[in-house]
């Protein structure tokens, strides 16, 4: 395919994807509104279980009320609108998530290289890494705060550390798998050049690992947002999207739709982080064969 032909096909794909995005959004809105129209306002029981959601305006506000909420005055923020307050919170959370993701990638790739280098490290370390992911973040947050305090680091580093704690794991697992993916013939080839382990890592194992690393990085990107938001909810003092979710849910009586506005902001952050990794992917993979695209 010619270069202009390829650019044209990328443009077509982008248009189609955007159309699909709006179509799925429209379907979600339609489902929400039609349930709200037919569902019982005070919920209902099935075999004695109260599982049919209420459709009153406090629990299920109209979608347009949610959208309009962004333009309302934010409670307790002077004459600022909700959207501008949330934008500030989002930027704050995004920076911590980015720092967490960067740290998580660094640690994750480092651990994977160590494990690929020495089988004994893999055997000894991998079980502990798996266990680390079963520890609830809420239990870990106070400990991290204590350690952070003793190191005299700013408060936001707690959130970044916990985001890194969540995001390193998928990076480690996918990178390790990728580093082990180099074909035997390519490894023999490097061997025939008497190339050492680090040279082989740089010229062969790392580039071969990229298609495997990308899905791990995507998981890590969204995990780092979750890590920061959970930290904000658990620890006080960090004014980001997580704080907004809690803050607005306490004001649910006066402005029920504002909680949803905060949730949308959190979702948007996850999408932005995912998008950043996807952009990195398309740069790194632009000259790879189609079938190896992650």
């Amino acid at each position, binding site marked *: 395919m010619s270069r202009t032909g390829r650019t044209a096909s990328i443009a077509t794909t982008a248009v189609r994807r955007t159309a699909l995005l709006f179509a799925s959004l429209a379907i979600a809105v339609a489902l929400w509104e039609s349930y709200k129209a037919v569902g019982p306002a005070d919920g209902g029981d099935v075999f004695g279980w109260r599982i049919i959601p209420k459709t009153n305006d406090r629990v299920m506000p109209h979608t347009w009320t949610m959208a309009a909420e962004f333009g309302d005055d934010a409670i307790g923020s002077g004459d600022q609108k909700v959207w501008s307050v949330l934008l500030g919170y989002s930027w704050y959370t995004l920076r911590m998530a980015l720092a967490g993701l960067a740290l998580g990638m660094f640690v994750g790739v480092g651990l994977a290289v160590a494990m690929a280098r020495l089988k004994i490290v893999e055997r000894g370390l991998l079980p502990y890494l798996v266990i680390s992911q079963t520890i609830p973040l809420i239990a870990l947050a106070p400990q991290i705060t204590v350690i952070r305090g003793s190191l005299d680091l700013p408060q936001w580093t707690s959130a970044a550390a916990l985001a890194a704690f969540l995001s390193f794991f998928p990076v480690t697992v996918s990178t390790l798998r990728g580093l082990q993916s180099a074909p035997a*013939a390519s490894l023999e*080839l490097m*061997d*025939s050049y008497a*190339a050492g382990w680090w*040279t082989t890592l740089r010229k062969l194992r790392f*580039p071969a690992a990229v298609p495997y690393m990308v899905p791990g990085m995507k998981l890590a990107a969204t995990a780092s947002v979750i890590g920061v938001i959970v930290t904000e909810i658990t620890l006080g003092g960090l004014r980001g999207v997580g704080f907004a979710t809690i803050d607005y849910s306490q004001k649910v009586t006066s402005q029920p739709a504002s909680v949803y506005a905060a949730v949308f902001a959190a979702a948007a952050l996850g999408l932005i982080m995912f998008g950043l990794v996807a952009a990195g992917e398309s740069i790194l993979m632009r*000259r*790879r064969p189609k079938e*190896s695209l992650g």
Partner: protein
Amino acid sequence: MSAATDQAKAVVVSDVSMVFNQGGPGAVAALDHVGLEVEPGDFVSLIGPSGCGKSTLLRVIANLLEPTAGSVLVNGKSAHQARIDQDYGMAFQQSGLFEWRTVTKNIELPLELKGWDKQRRRERVSEMLELVKLPDRGGHMPWELSGGQQQRIAIARALAAHPPLLLMDEPFGALDEMTREHMQSELLQICAATGTTVVFVTHSIPEAVYLSDRVVVMSAGPGRITDIVSVDLGRDRDEDTREDDTFYKKITEVREALRGGELTDSARGIEDR
């Protein structure tokens, strides 16, 4: 045999044995007291059934495997030293081109590892692209090329550092018959132009006969050399050679040598693998 004549040989394999999983329950004798000498400029093929150790022998010469017993000299040096000095190039059945590198960057790989500067690398690459008759493919990615073209690039990469010896493990095994015959003729021209010595592993009798000055026939269980067939078809071989009476005669000779090996095996009650 004196040390002086060994110095002049391209490859000297003396009394090499290779046992995998030695001492273990699954011990396999892949090579059993194998000896082979290759003169500079010679084209030698290794042929035999699966499990006869032909690929193992190639890897022992390349120093990718350390033999259990015996010694290997390449270019008058130990195989280990020859590997460090990049005295040989290698090509495999899968072209093994790095999909993230352009054709040019693939051919450059061995030169990069030797620490050549960019200017010198680029000059050598265009020379190699001319040699394999793909002068305008340097900027392409490997996956944009056909299987035959990829294999040519792999040969260009193997020869980029101008090694005196080329080791090939069924390099045309994955190609269709027409491309394969074409590539065989190309390879002979490249070797004639560069004076490279070749040790070539193959499953195909016509391929071995068409390419080689000598066909080394091996048999399995344990792997060893049963016969060496000299092919005196001269150096100027072309498509007509494939219809030459001598060509057919030599094919028959190699085939009988291969069968002879199997007969001896069953006579001795040794299994084929």
